[in-house]
């Protein structure tokens, strides 16, 4: 599904390489977690995969379903099934949630050559998803993320995910700022959405989210590259010993 090969990425504004030769292969149905200390390049990786401006790809390739992801426009990536749940979901004043969701869904459908969803079917769909995530009607009427708490914003991201039905989902520090109840709710949403054809890349600083969203693979990222890969027990190991042993690994590779 996704194949990253020796990816190197710098910041556009300063000549500083953040990702320094990263390779990763994700098959359909797999859940991969990337853990790492602050500044290791986790969020840069998710931004580059989603297509955010401000980064220069120095070398390497990213293939998604056989096509060159890095050459694909941002909105096209979305239509092809790439979804990123934002660490800090963006507020858009004056734009109602429903309007935003419907515009997004139908834009994607249009790009894929599918018929747009009519208002009635759309409402039915959104309401059923919102109900599962315990998102109130009142919240759905508000402008996108405006005046929402951290937990509400993250639930909103998961709602968008369930509605847009992507094939490859990046959860960028989705656990940050969540209390246990909110984390359970978000995880429930993710787990009920996962299937044998969908893949997840879970980016997190802490292990606790991985108690709820159980990964098939855990990668430790230090200083722009993956220094260790293991199963879910690796995450528990990190929880106990911290990242300090891995920092050394990162240096040795230089």
């Amino acid at each position, binding site marked *: 599904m996704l194949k990253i090969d020796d990816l190197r990425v710098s910041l556009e504004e300063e000549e500083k390489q953040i990702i320094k030769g990263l390779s990763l292969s994700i098959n359909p149905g797999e859940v991969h977690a990337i853990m790492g200390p602050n500044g290791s390049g986790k969020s840069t990786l998710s931004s580059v995969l989603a*297509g955010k401006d401000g980064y220069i790809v120095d070398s390497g390739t990213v293939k998604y379903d056989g096509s060159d992801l890095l050459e694909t426009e941002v*909105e096209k990536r979305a239509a092809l099934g790439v979804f990123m749940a*934002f660490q800090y979901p963006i507020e858009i004043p004056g734009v*109602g949630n*429903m*309007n935003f969701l419907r515009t997004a869904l139908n*834009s994607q459908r249009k790009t894929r050559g599918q018929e747009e969803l009519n208002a009635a079917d759309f*409402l039915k769909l959104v309401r059923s998803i919102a109900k599962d995530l315990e998102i109130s009607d009142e919240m*759905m009427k508000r402008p996108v993320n405006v005046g929402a708490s951290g937990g509400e914003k993250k639930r909103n991201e998961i709602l968008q995910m369930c509605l*847009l039905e992507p094939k490859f989902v990046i959860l960028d520090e989705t656990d940050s700022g969540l209390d246990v109840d909110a984390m359970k709710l978000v995880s429930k949403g993710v787990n009920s959405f996962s299937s044998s054809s969908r893949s997840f890349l879970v980016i997190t600083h802490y292990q606790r989210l991985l108690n709820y969203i159980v990964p098939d693979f855990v990668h430790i990222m230090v200083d722009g590259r993956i220094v260790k890969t293991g199963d879910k027990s690796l995450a528990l190991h990190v929880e106990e010993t911290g990242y300090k042993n891995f920092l050394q690994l990162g240096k040795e590779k230089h």
Partner: protein
Amino acid sequence: MTDNYEVRDVIDKETLSTVKSVGDSYKYGFSTDIETEYAPLGLNEDIVRLISKKNNEPNWMLDWRLKAFNRWKKLKQPDWALLKIPEIDFQNQYYYARPANMKEKPKSLDEVEPKLLETYSKLGIPLTEQKKLAGVVEGVSIADPENRKVAVDAVFDSVSVGTTFKDELKSAGVLFCSISEAIQEYPDLVKKYLGSVVPISDNFFACLNAAVFSDGSFVYIPEGVRCPMELSTYFRINAENTGQFERTLIIADNNAYVSYLEGCTAPQRDESQLHAAVVELVILEKAEIKYSTVQNWFPGDENGIGGIYNFVTKRADCRGKNSKVMWTQVETGSAITWKYPSCVLKGDNSSGEFYSIAITNNMQQADTGTKMIHLGKNTKSRIVSKGISAGKAQNTYRGLVQIGGRSQHSRNFTQCDSLLIGNKCGAHTVPYIEVNNSSARAEHEATTSKVDEDQLFYCMQRGIGEEDAVALIVNGFCKEVLQALPMEFAMEAQKLVAISLEGSVG
């Protein structure tokens, strides 16, 4: 979720897809090939007499015009606005143009030249008395539970070509016709109110208008009548090198109500054209007028060639106690906009509201805002202004809030937000606040922001293309004002917002 909410939602979406289907950025740039009769070039007393004669005006009207003309000769064009106005040669303009076959005014719509009707239908303004809405975006169908009708007065260059639903309105007591007709049919009303809100010598452009205005709309809502439908005037400049000077006079008598819409377009031409209109609103006791404008004159091309110079004086006089006025404007067109719809709050407890969206792109310049003059006690005013600049455009909000010494316990609230797209444009806010008594209160809030890269990325990551994303964000920014518009205008306005900003990103 309320039904109303869902309808709105549908429109937003339809709007976005309509925008995509619009090929040219200025959709109304076509011209109608029709034989046109001009007055001789330039401006002098003879021209003023000629215009008066063409309209078969009584002597008192001619005298009024001549007085204005003599006054105008002594006035100087104002230069205080933040506008770079190329020198206007007032002698190199035509002051009167009408389709040749309009010599005899058509008695009914059936007699109107088909080419003219075609022009309006191309603009989306059907001059038929079907249950259609003015200015409705083609291809957009909405549930219309009330089957709302809109009566239209269509002004083509210097003359009104027809007014719909006249008879139906008349049976409700509402007078709706062209001002040239009103001067002949209802001289007492016209004499009483014309120039009573915007006096002849009010300002340079208003004075010019008083001398040479050729047509416009007249509305009188008698005491206690709630106008049974929305009224609208659609202004179209077609002839080349011709100024349009229309005059609108609306009177809402005691306890009357009317909602009035105004739309405007012009062909795409390399020469700039002058538009200097005057709108006077008279609101008596407990009466209310809502006046909405979607101004979409040709803005000039991306290098600033051509476009309409729009110098407009609009003022509402809340004469009666508890009277109300609401101005809503969406300004997307014109090369230059100089316009300050104002409210004079004379009656105690009267209130004035001003909602404005001004969008400038490419080389457009706008200096627009409002004046709230509080004279009566307990008067209230509210100003919500949203300025959006893109390209190399300059956008200025200029507003005056004046609370007089006798205007006890009056209140004003002003909110002025500016949004910048790109880094070559400018936004300016020039508020004047004068409060002359201690029981009054004026609040002013202002913000300036840029279309945020993060917002754009967020939308695009969800699959929304860049131009749709900008349209969505800007429409969100303007929401408060768009909601103040009647439904059918809100749709057109949303569409316009998107079209005006095409090509402003990327």
